[in-house]
């Protein structure tokens, strides 16, 4: 029988993979992909809690749909930024993106 714990373990694993990707990858596109993984881990969490804890109430589902919409927008902006930076720097390596320091 598959219970809540399985979903939580899946989403936790997925979140950690995403976090590692976001923190350790050098390619900006890969970082965005890591972020997507983390967001989807959260979505699994939300839907799982909605199914097992608050059965019959659709708040978790609706929230997950919102997260998907926001994530789509965020990726659009993020990709646009990366394309703009790439045109300037001919690079998508985040080690080169250090202009925000003093």
């Amino acid at each position: 029988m598959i219970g809540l714990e399985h979903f939580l373990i899946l989403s936790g694993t997925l979140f950690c993979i995403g976090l590692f990707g976001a923190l350790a990858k050098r390619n900006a596109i890969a970082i965005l992909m890591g972020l997507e993984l983390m967001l989807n881990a959260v979505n699994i969490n939300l839907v799982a809690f909605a199914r097992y804890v608050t059965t019959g109430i659709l708040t978790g589902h609706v929230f997950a749909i919102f997260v998907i919409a926001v994530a789509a927008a965020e990726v659009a902006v993020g990709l646009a930024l990366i394309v703009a930076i790439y045109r300037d720097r001919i690079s998508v390596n985040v080690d080169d993106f250090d202009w925000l320091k003093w």
Partner: protein
Amino acid sequence: MIDFALHNAWLIPLLPAIAFLLIFLVFRPLPKVSAFIGITAIFLSFVLAVHVGIGVIQAGDQFVEHPLKQVVTWFEMSGLKIEMGVQIDPTSAMMLFMVSLVALMVNIYSLGYMHGDQAFSRFYAFLALFAMSMLGLVIAPNLLQMFVFWELVGLCSYLLIGFWWHKYSAREAAKKAFITTRTGDFGLLLGILLLQINFGTLDLMTLGEMIPNFQEYTNLSVGGLTAIAAILFLGPIGKSGQFPLHVWLPDAMEGPTPVSALIHAATMVVAGVYLVGRSLILFQTVPGAMAFVAFMGGFTALFAATIAITQTEMKKILAYSTVSQLGYMMLALGAGSLTGGMFHLFTHAFFKSLMFLGAGSVLHAMNNDADIWKYGGLKKKMPITYWTFLIGCLAIAGIFPFAGFFSKDEILLVVKEASHGAQFAGLYTLLFWMATITAALTAFYMFRMFFICFHGEPRDKSFHPHEAPFSMAFPLVVLSIFSIFGGFIGAPWVEHGFGYYVRLGEYHHPSVDWAIIIVSTILALGSIFLAYWIYGKKAVSHEALAQKFAPLYKISFNKYYIDEIYLWLIHNVLDGLGRALWWFDITVVDGIINGIGNAAKILGSILRRVQTGKLQHYALVLFAGVVILVLIMSFADTSSASLSLLGGVR
């Protein structure tokens, strides 16, 4: 007319003020018109002053105790009321007459002396401004108004000493005069403030009533009041060229000669004497202050006279003579005699301005070459100057019946009386002898100059001296008349003479002390004869005398090295102190300020390394922060305050 003058005495300083504005703003390009306006204004002031004088004399001694006072409130706030106005009493009436007369004479004299000068109009403008300031000072009913005009005459003095500003020495002399007198004025202002704080008023009449019973009104001790008087006296020390602030007065001779006659002989420099005379009650209440004034005066008189003996420029000799005579006046005031001080001030103004104008006439004739050893034999070339100058010399030497005789003997008399008094008898006895010696020295150095300049053969044939024009000769004649007869108003045989009007306290009929008269006359005549013996007849070589007394001669010729001492003090002590304070400012004060700034900078340069600019570092720190927060929230006591601070839930 007399009544009008008495009640409208404020017009007397106002007329020259109007003349000043007219000349300065409108008629500056027209020198003749400027001179006309200046002379007319001061002449009208003089006429008014004469009528004021007549009015005061006609009123008898009624104005002595109850001066005619008209005031308007200048400004008022709680605890402080400052008035401006006019106070007419015999002392101020006498000063009005004297100042306006000498100013008028100098204005006329300048027509000839300043003829052709590029800044002729400016000269008349400044003369008018000076006349306004001095007349305003004289009629001041309170110490603050006096102080305001006191500073104004100081400004005029500065402007007129530096009148020929293209000369380096004139510029320097003007600065020296201003700075030196300002040093004293600091004390004067402090003294005035102390009086205001303690007595709550600066009005001369009110102060005159309060000060004798000062213990009723204030909690000052005798020592405290003595200190106030001594601080106040610093102003007169600076303005009236008393030792040790006399150094500016001889240098002030860089100005045009009419200015020296008006400002640095007859009027402005006596402002200090006048101020002490006006506040004499303050000094009289505390005998210590009186003795201080008397000693400073007596010492300055002798000190300056010994310098004057060896100087080689007419105006320098006259300047030191002025310092010496001002000391004489201070001595009389210090001996408690307003009459003596003011009487000598009155007569001195005439014969000293006469001699300055005479010296100006000589300088004019000798193309402004100041060295008296180039003169000689001017008697034949300049008879009017010669005779008027002789009158001036006789007057200052104190020969009967010239003006100086009466006033000088009056001073010797009051000092002698003071030496029989209860307090400081020894000091006054010493001062009496110092004054007597000074009188002899005065006669000597005056006639030394007289014989060198006017007698003998011309030493330098390249000069072609000529007699002064009418505009310059006329004031000489007028002033010499006053130098001859001016003393009679205070002569012992006059029933209600000078001392009846200008006095403080009860009237004492001037007594005759034959011992003083005989001794001072013998000393004066002896000194004149000695001067004739050395410089007129040349029986003894003056060069040999100078050789014989070389150390004394050198000290006197170099004015006791006072200027050098001041320079040394300024270069070493003052500059050294300045350097020490500069070092303190640069290292300690700036060090602290810069240190604080640098500390922040160093701290920042360390902390800014946290900002790597790498996005992933920020993200890592952010995540670590979240992890730490979650850990705290899971392990901390759920009821602790720190949890709620972190936004946790119970």
